[in-house]
């Protein structure tokens, strides 16, 4: 009997693309929370439900192909299973292709933990006219098997009932029979006997533990006993010498052989006919010639949809904030406050909150469209199409989408890196995104180029800045690849799932979750950053804000020896400091600093075209805005990566602007 006072932990586990998240959403509905797995940037999702008298915590584990990890997600799954075994395992199989998932199912079934298997998408199997012998499957696996369809809800009450039964009367799972080479069987038995004799209490089956130790060199924590460790090492050598293959490959082969046998017994036709729709669609979408143009077209539509809908929404929000500000300022109780406090409240706090909320529409739209693309299965196709190009940077094709969307806004693009498949991909991509020419930078550039360059040249300057952004991304990508800052790229082996219709509920839940995450994880840092810049530009209290005498002005002058070789005056340095809040503020800041009535005339009088170009190049590359940094910090869970992003930006900006300005001077521009 499972202890009654605590929540019962059920782990939801399966290989990728079995509809696990859909089932998770069906079982826990809106009762979900997210967190992070210890030490990694992978999202931990869990939900709550009650079955009869039991309170249950359902943990949605990342998709994993095996308990021997190849990816960060799989490491999370292994550590969870071995360090904190759940009370019950709920494993999911894809009815359309049992073979894919059965190897993991068999591994889990060996753990001895009470377990249940849900065969999902049973309705789609029936549509294909195939049948599944559930009792046979259940008998061979030694655990209850329930056919369900997470989409239609078919079988879900039965699944809940079966779970209830397992909680009420948990049975030690009888290990399914898999035949291994005799020497491996011997090794497992011998090590298992040693575990029997050691004093450490184990919740997991000893044969299972022995197998995990043999397969996984890096699993040193399940059994601490030194003698066991030594025995494992020598057995491992003996088995590998005897079979001539690495143990993990031998094990996988034996498990998949068992899986193949099981499939043969449980289904009447083998293998299932491939999905005809998917084949037809892929013939067009993955076409060697038309595939890429179609993908770029899709991206263009996506981009237009996100920003075409998002920017007007942002404007409405910002008008709302302005209206709120004037209304608040008009209030007696606030107007009576000291001037500096009012300034802090409105120019500091209120503006910080404004910056945070202004990202909401873009982030929401971004994740709505991203989830749709991901849920249909087109994301893996995009990765396939763009792989060659991105491979040069050690990235896979999916990263292209993030980079591209960075050209709209960096923040959702960085948040979206969590869909990428390895830590290397995630870290490198989030370090490259800040070099995209986002819409906020574009506003600054459009404004400045119009003032500083004649109409015939201005568009070319803008175009050059776009090219500069591409070059920066590529150069930085190569640099990061060579420096191995994010570790080594992983082999690219990706399963391409059949196309599916996305579900509104999943998309909505995901988007809501992302907004909540952004609010919790990034908002504080953004508001803090805005307040710090406010402090610098408004103190000491007795000088005009943003003037030469403020701390910011003093900083600008202090750094002027560093910026003079770039052709950047101290006034612009202060504007750059403002740009840290959000790049579009640079123009507004220049207006405050130069103080004159007509900013355009002021700028034209103070800045030469060459200096302006150097300033824009600096603005393009230097530190990501505070919100992007906050997103990088939230996604990477690492200050090292966050600071690296800052350093890379500032360093490359300084070098590029220096080269540009000095070369320009030498050539004879002024």
């Amino acid at each position, binding site marked *: 009997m499972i202890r009654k006072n605590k929540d019962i932990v059920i782990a939801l586990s399966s290989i990728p693309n079995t509809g696990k998240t859909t089932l998770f959403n069906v079982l826990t509905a809106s009762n979900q929370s997210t967190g992070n797995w210890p030490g990694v940037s992978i999202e931990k999702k869990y939900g709550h439900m009650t079955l009869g008298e039991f309170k249950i915590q359902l943990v949605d584990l990342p998709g994993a192909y095996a308990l021997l990890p190849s990816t960060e997600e799989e490491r999370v799954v292994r550590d969870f299973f071995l360090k904190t075994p759940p009370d019950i395992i709920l494993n999911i199989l894809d009815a359309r*292709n049992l*073979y894919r998932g059965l190897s993991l199912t068999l591994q889990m079934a060996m753990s001895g933990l009470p377990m249940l298997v849900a065969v999902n998408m049973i309705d789609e199997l029936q549509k294909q006219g195939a049948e599944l012998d559930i009792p046979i499957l259940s008998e061979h696996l030694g655990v209850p098997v329930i056919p369900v369809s997470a989409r239609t809800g078919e079988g879900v009450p039965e699944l809940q009932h079966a779970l209830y039964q397992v909680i009420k009367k948990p049975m030690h799972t009888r290990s399914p029979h898999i035949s291994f080479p005799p020497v491996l069987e011997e090794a497992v038995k011998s090590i298992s006997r040693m575990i029997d004799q050691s004093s450490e209490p184990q919740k997991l089956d000893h044969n299972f533990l022995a197998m995990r130790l043999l397969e996984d060199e890096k699993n040193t924590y399940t059994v601490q006993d030194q003698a066991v460790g030594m025995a494992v090492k020598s057995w491992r050598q003996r088995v590998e010498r005897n079979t001539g293959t690495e143990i993990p490959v031998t094990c996988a082969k034996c498990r998949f052989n068992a899986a193949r046998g099981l499939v043969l017994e449980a289904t009447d036709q083998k293998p299932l006919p491939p999905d005809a729709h998917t084949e037809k669609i892929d013939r067009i979408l993955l076409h060697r010639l038309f595939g890429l143009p179609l993908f770029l077209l899709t991206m263009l539509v996506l981009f237009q949809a996100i920003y075409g809908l998002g920017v007007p929404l942002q404007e409405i929000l910002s008008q709302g904030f302005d209206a709120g500000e004037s209304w608040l300022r008009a209030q007696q109780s606030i107007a009576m406050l000291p001037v500096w406090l009012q300034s802090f409240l409105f120019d500091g706090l209120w503006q910080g909150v404004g910056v945070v909320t202004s990202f909401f529409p873009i982030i929401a739209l971004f994740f709505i469209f991203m989830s749709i693309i991901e849920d249909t299965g087109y994301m893996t196709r995009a990765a*396939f199409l763009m792989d060659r190009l991105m491979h040069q940077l050690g990235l896979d094709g999916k990263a292209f989408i993030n980079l591209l969307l960075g050209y709209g806004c960096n923040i959702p693009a960085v948040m979206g890196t969590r869909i990428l498949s390895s830590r290397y991909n995630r870290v490198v991509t989030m370090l490259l995104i800040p070099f995209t020419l986002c819409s906020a930078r574009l506003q600054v550039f459009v404004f400045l180029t119009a003032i500083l360059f004649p109409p015939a040249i201005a568009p070319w300057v803008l175009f050059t800045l776009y090219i500069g952004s591409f070059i920066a991304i590529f150069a930085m990508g190569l640099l990061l690849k060579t420096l191995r800052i994010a570790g080594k790229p992983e082999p690219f*082996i990706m*399963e391409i799932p059949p196309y599916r219709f996305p579900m509104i509920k999943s998309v909505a839940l995901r988007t809501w979750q992302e907004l909540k995450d952004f609010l919790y994880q990034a908002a504080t840092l953004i508001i803090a950053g805005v307040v710090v810049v406010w402090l610098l530009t408004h103190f000491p209290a007795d000088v005009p804000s943003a003037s030469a005498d403020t701390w910011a002005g003093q900083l600008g002058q202090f750094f002027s020896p560093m910026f003079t070789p770039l052709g950047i005056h101290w006034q612009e340095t202060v504007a750059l400091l403002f740009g840290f809040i959000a790049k579009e503020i640079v123009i507004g800041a220049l207006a405050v600093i130069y103080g004159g009535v007509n900013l355009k005339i002021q700028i034209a009088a103070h800045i030469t075209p060459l200096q302006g170009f150097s300033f824009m190049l600096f603005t393009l590359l230097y530190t990501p805005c505070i919100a992007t940094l906050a997103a990088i910090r939230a996604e990477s869970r690492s200050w090292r990566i966050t600071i690296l992003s800052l350093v890379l930006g500032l360093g490359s900006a300084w070098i590029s602007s220096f080269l540009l300005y000095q070369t320009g001077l030498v050539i004879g521009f002024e």
Partner: protein
Amino acid sequence: MSSPLTIRPGCECIIRSLGQDKKVARRLAQMGVLPDTRIKVIRLAPFGGTIEVSIDQGQYFALRADEVNALDCEMVVMPLSDKTVKINQYYRVRSLFGGKTFQQKMEQQGIIPSIVIQPLELNTSPILIELIEKKKNLTLGLGQADKIIIEVIDDPQK
């Protein structure tokens, strides 16, 4: 005889071993791509380098050429020009990979899908093959051989 999988859409092989890269071998094994698995090239990505393959259990994968080349394979479906094609081995024509003119031309010579052939001379240009059912010898240019997709068979009677 083992060789890397010929990377052309439609080519098939049976994997004999997963190659030397441990990381890749493990990953493939865990995803169900194992020795004795039959693997088929579906398509190449734009610019090449990345390949979509399917395996006999109905899964589709994207792999890079490096990973595919590391696999030790026994070719079972390939173009007649493939270097794994041997003399004195029976092959069945699977499909003709070319325009209408080419298909008609081949038909006139008796090369249509499902007929059995046996190469007699391969290291020459043109090559010499025998059409088993018709007991007729035929020479083919290398360009033509490249467009004829064949499948290894054991016994022409079957």
